[in-house]
C-alpha cells in the first residue's frame, strides 16, 4: 500500500484554472481575427494557417518524443497558439516550405531548446517570425492585396503596408501629407482594409478578442494598455513637434502589428512579467522601442523586435518588481 502523504506549502485552494483552459481561451479570442483573415485573404490564409498549426504540432511531437525523449505534451494547446500566431505574422502567400521552417524554428529554437513550455525566454511564434523575416526578406515583405474570399494562394497581386509606404516615401523626400493620400483611411485600417500580414490587418477583430480575454480574466489590462498607450503618447509628441515628418498616433496604432503584438503576443504568460507593475514597465518598453524602430530604424515595422527585446528583460523585471507574496498583509 502506498501510504505516503503529500505535504505541500500553501496555497491549497485551486481556482480551477489549467494550462489547457487558458490556452483554448486565447485560441477562442483569436477566432474573430482568424475569420477576418480568411475573409480578406481567402484560400491563402487557410493554407498558411493549417500548415503552420500542423507543423507546430508535428515538430513539437517529434522533438519531445525522439530528441528529448520526454513526455509528449502536445495537447496543452500551446502549439496551437504558436501555430496560429505564426500564421498571423506572415503574408498569406508564403510558400509552404518557408512556413514549415518558421514552425521548426519557433518550436525547436524558440521553445524546446530552452526546455519546453514554461521555460522559454522568448515568444516562440515571434522567434519564428523574425527568423523568417531575416532569412527570406523578399517573401516576408511581399504582402498580398486583399481580394476577399476569392483570393488565391501563391500568385497574388502584392502591395506595400502603410508603414512601408510612409517609411519609403519619407526616405525619398516626399512630404507626409502627400503620402497620407496613398494610404487607406483610419476607418479602413480599423476594419482591416489594407496590406499586411494575415493577423495584423483587422484592428476591430483584434480588439474584440481583447475584450473577450479581459472579460474571461484570461489576461489583465496592464500589458495591452501600456503598450498601446505608450505608443500613442510617444508618437503624439513626435507628431506635435513636426507633423510633416512624423505620422500621428492613430496611424501608428492601427497599422502594422501593434494591436496583434500588444494584445496576443506581449501578453504570453511565459514570456511576460508576473507583477502588475512589472507588466506596465514591460509594456511601456515595448511601446517605446516599437516607435523608435519604426521612426528611426531601418525596418518599417518594429513590434516583433520590440517584444523580443523586452522578453529578454523579463527576468530582470521580475527580480526588481516582485509580485506580492501570497498571504502577506497589505501595507
Amino acid at each position, binding site marked *: 500500500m502506498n501510504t505516503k502523504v503529500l505535504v505541500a506549502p500553501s496555497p491549497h485552494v485551486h481556482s480551477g484554472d489549467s494550462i489547457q483552459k487558458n490556452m483554448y481561451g486565447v485560441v477562442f479570442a483569436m477566432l474573430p481575427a482568424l475569420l477576418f483573415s480568411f475573409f480578406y485573404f481567402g484560400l491563402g490564409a487557410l493554407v498558411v494557417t493549417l500548415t503552420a498549426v500542423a507543423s507546430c504540432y508535428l515538430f513539437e511531437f517529434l522533438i519531445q518524443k525522439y530528441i528529448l525523449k520526454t513526455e509528449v505534451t502536445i495537447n496543452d494547446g500551446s502549439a496551437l497558439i504558436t501555430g496560429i500566431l505564426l500564421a498571423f505574422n506572415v503574408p498569406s502567400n508564403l510558400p509552404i*516550405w518557408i512556413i514549415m*521552417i518558421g514552425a521548426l524554428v519557433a518550436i525547436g*529554437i524558440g521553445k524546446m*531548446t530552452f526546455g519546453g513550455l514554461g521555460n522559454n525566454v522568448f515568444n516562440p511564434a515571434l522567434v519564428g517570425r523574425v*527568423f523568417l523575416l*531575416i*532569412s*527570406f*526578406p523578399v517573401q516576408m515583405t511581399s504582402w498580398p492585396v486583399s481580394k476577399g474570399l476569392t483570393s488565391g494562394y501563391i500568385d497574388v497581386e502584392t502591395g506595400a503596408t502603410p508603414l512601408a509606404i510612409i517609411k519609403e516615401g519619407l526616405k525619398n523626400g516626399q512630404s507626409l501629407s502627400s503620402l497620407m493620400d496613398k494610404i487607406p483611411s483610419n476607418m479602413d485600417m480599423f476594419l482591416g482594409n489594407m496590406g499586411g500580414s494575415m493577423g495584423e490587418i483587422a484592428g476591430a477583430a483584434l480588439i474584440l478578442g481583447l475584450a473577450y480575454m479581459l472579460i474571461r480574466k484570461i489576461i489583465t489590462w496592464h500589458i495591452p494598455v501600456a503598450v498601446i498607450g505608450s505608443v500613442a503618447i510617444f508618437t503624439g509628441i513626435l507628431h506635435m513637434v513636426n507633423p510633416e515628418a512624423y505620422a500621428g498616433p492613430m496611424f501608428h496604432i492601427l497599422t502594422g502589428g501593434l494591436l496583434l503584438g500588444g494584445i496576443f503576443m506581449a501578453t504570453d504568460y511565459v514570456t511576460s512579467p508576473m507583477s502588475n507593475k512589472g507588466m506596465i514597465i514591460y509594456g511601456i518598453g515595448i511601446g517605446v522601442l516599437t516607435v523608435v524602430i519604426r521612426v528611426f530604424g531601418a525596418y518599417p515595422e518594429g513590434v516583433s523586435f520590440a517584444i523580443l527585446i523586452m522578453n529578454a528583460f523579463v527576468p530582470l523585471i521580475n527580480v526588481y518588481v516582485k509580485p506580492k507574496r501570497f498571504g502577506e498583509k497589505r501595507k
Partner: protein
Amino acid sequence: MTHKENFLKGFFKENAVFTLLLGMCPTLGVTSSAINGLGMGLATTFVLIMSNLVISLVSSQIPDKVKIPSFIVIIASFVTMVDLVMAGYVPALHEQLGVFIPLIVVNCVVLGRAEAFASKNKLVPSIIDGVSMGLGFAMALTMLGAIREFFGSGKMFGVTLFNETYGMLVFVLAPGAFIALGYLIAFINRVRKA
C-alpha cells in the same frame, strides 16, 4: 603527457572553441563560409606555432614583470607578418577576413597558450601544442563556416549544392553565427557524454 596525447587534445578534449570557449570573436565574426573559417583557422595556427616556438625558447630569459608585454610584442609581430603576407599574396581572402587578421593579436587562444603552456614547457611539446590547438581551432571554424555556408547560401566550400533562393540568410548574418555555434556546442557535448 605523451606527444600523441599532447597532439590530440586540441581537437576534442581541450578544443579552444568547443570546450574552452576561447577566441569567440573570430569564431563568430569570420565564419560566414567554410573557406573563411579555414583561412582564419590556418592564419591563427601559424601565429600559434610561431609564438609558442619563440616563447618557449626565450621565456626563461624574460623577467616575470614584463612577461605579458613581451609575449604580446612577439605575438603581434607574427600577426603583422601574416597580415602583410596575406595582403600581398592572397588579397581576396585578406579582404574577406578584413579586420579579423590584425585582431588575432587579442585572440585569447594565442596568449593563453603562450602563458599557460609554452612559457612552462620545452620547445618540442610547445610546438606540438601550437599545432594541436591551432588545427583544433581551424577545424572548429571550418565546421561552423561549413554549416553556416550550407544553410545560408546552399554552398559548401563555394560549391553550390542547392539553389541560393532556398538559403536562410540569417545564417550568413551575425544571429545565425550564434545559433549555429550554440547548437554545434550542444551537439558536441551530447556526443561527449554518450
